[in-house]
């Protein structure tokens, strides 16, 4: 009898986690470069009570366990912004950014700007890493052009020729699902995951930004399914509880009737 309650409870715990994940996805519906999370559940087989001798056949019970959350790395929609320092990646690759303490992170959010010292940075102020370290602009630079391969060229002062300012470093991963979210639309690579140069044919688009890949309709459907499922489990628990109460009260009446 208690098993039914505990199994129901394990399902409800898992559903609560899934709700947290959906809430986070929907909260980030308009976050540039955001990748949606999904929950993955597994059944957990209760170990058999084999060291005890039972006369009846022992049945195994299974619980629900939230096994993992996996990141949906599919590309988001590309929105045109017109800002010359906005860059979207067309292809399976990531920009490399560097935090103030020297840690390298990866992001699909190409909403860049120039800081007071002329360096190309993310909106959090992390340096964008180019082929030769941080990308630095001179104070007289204007007309920034970023080529599909990520090459950044500018016109310096009254000079009529382009001057190169570096090339955006693009990396890819054999299994991007192993990346870990670190907030600020950035990912970190665990110790055993290495970044490879992006495959040929990966292009960047200047003046555009990658939107969040959260599918609002899909998330709403999941949300409805989840609340219904939660209510169903609650109803089962309710019935179990009623059944238990009834049997107890009937058993209590037994001695008086005989």
């Amino acid at each position, binding site marked *: 009898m208690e098993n039914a309650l505990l199994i129901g409870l394990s399902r409800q715990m898992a559903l609560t*986690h899934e709700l947290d994940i959906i*809430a986070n996805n929907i*909260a980030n519906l308009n976050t540039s470069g955001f990748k949606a*999370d999904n929950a993955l559940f597994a059944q957990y087989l209760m170990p058999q009570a084999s060291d005890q001798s039972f006369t009846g056949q022992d049945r195994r019970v299974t619980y629900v366990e939230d096994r993992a959350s996996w990141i949906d790395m599919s590309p988001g929609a590309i929105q045109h912004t017109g800002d010359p320092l906005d860059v979207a990646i067309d292809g399976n690759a990531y920009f490399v950014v560097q935090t103030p303490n020297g840690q390298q992170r990866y992001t699909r959010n190409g909403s860049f700007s120039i800081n007071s010292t002329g360096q190309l940075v993310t909106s959090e102020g992390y340096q964008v890493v180019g082929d030769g370290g941080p990308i630095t602009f001179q104070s007289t630079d204007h007309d920034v052009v970023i080529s599909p391969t990520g090459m950044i060229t500018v016109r310096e002062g009254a000079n009529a020729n382009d001057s190169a300012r570096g090339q955006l470093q693009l990396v890819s991963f054999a299994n991007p699902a192993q990346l870990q*979210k670190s907030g600020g639309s950035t990912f970190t690579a665990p110790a*055993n995951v290495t970044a490879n140069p992006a495959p040929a044919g990966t292009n960047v688009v200047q003046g555009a930004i990658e939107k969040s890949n959260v599918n609002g309709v899909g998330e*709403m459907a999941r*949300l409805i399914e989840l609340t219904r499922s939660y209510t169903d489990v609650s109803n089962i628990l309710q019935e179990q509880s009623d059944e238990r109460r009834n049997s107890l009260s009937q058993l209590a009446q037994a001695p008086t009737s005989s």
Partner: protein
Amino acid sequence: MRALDTAATGMAAMDLQVQVIAGNIANMTTTGFKSQRAEFQDLLYEHVQRIGAQASDQGNILPVGIELGSGVKTVGTPRLMTQGTLEQTGNTLDVAIEGDGWFKIQMPDGTFSYTRDGSFQQDSQGRIVNAEGDIVQPTITIPPNSTGLTINQQGQVSVIPAGSTTSTVLGQFTITRFANNAGLQANGSNLFTATVASGQPQDTLAGTDGAGTLQQGYLEQSNVEAVTEISNLIAAQRAYEMNSKVITAADEMLQTTSQLMK
């Protein structure tokens, strides 16, 4: 329940998004206005089960973990510093900058502000001032009864003084550039001030060192694009609704649980 707080951050973010859009739409016809965009990022994650943790004594590594996010934050409202379209006004003291750079304006307290709004006037002493009466730098005084006021592409202001037939150069507008235009602080009245993020102001002249050139008789329109703003508004409104649905769902689930106890 975490979902309640997470959805609340989403609603707050969309509220801010609508505020930014409202500001843009309200300034659709403001001279020299630069549209803003709200930039969001996801908040920190709780790693319930860390990726790459050991799953067993045999050294199995978990390929995926459990990460629970805690919502969204607004990281900034950068301005889109693109050129607005130039509208011909025919007014001799209307000047537009075509390209990078800002007009330098001296405020009544002696500090400097910067603007792209070149709808200038003359004050009672003949000085060239902006619509608020603040002096455009450097101070250029137009002698009374002079005619033929011209401002060339390099910002040189010249007039034909009364009783003369040849034009005289009165001065040349200062054009200021910044390393990071988006880091300027907006102070209303189309005026911006320098901040640590924008970098030091670099005074130069129109047409040199990367600064744009000037167009007399034109004004720079706002760079707000109505279609973009309206589509962003729809998206923000729908996202707000969806976040509120999550709160309703979390509430219903809590209610279901509380009804278990009789």
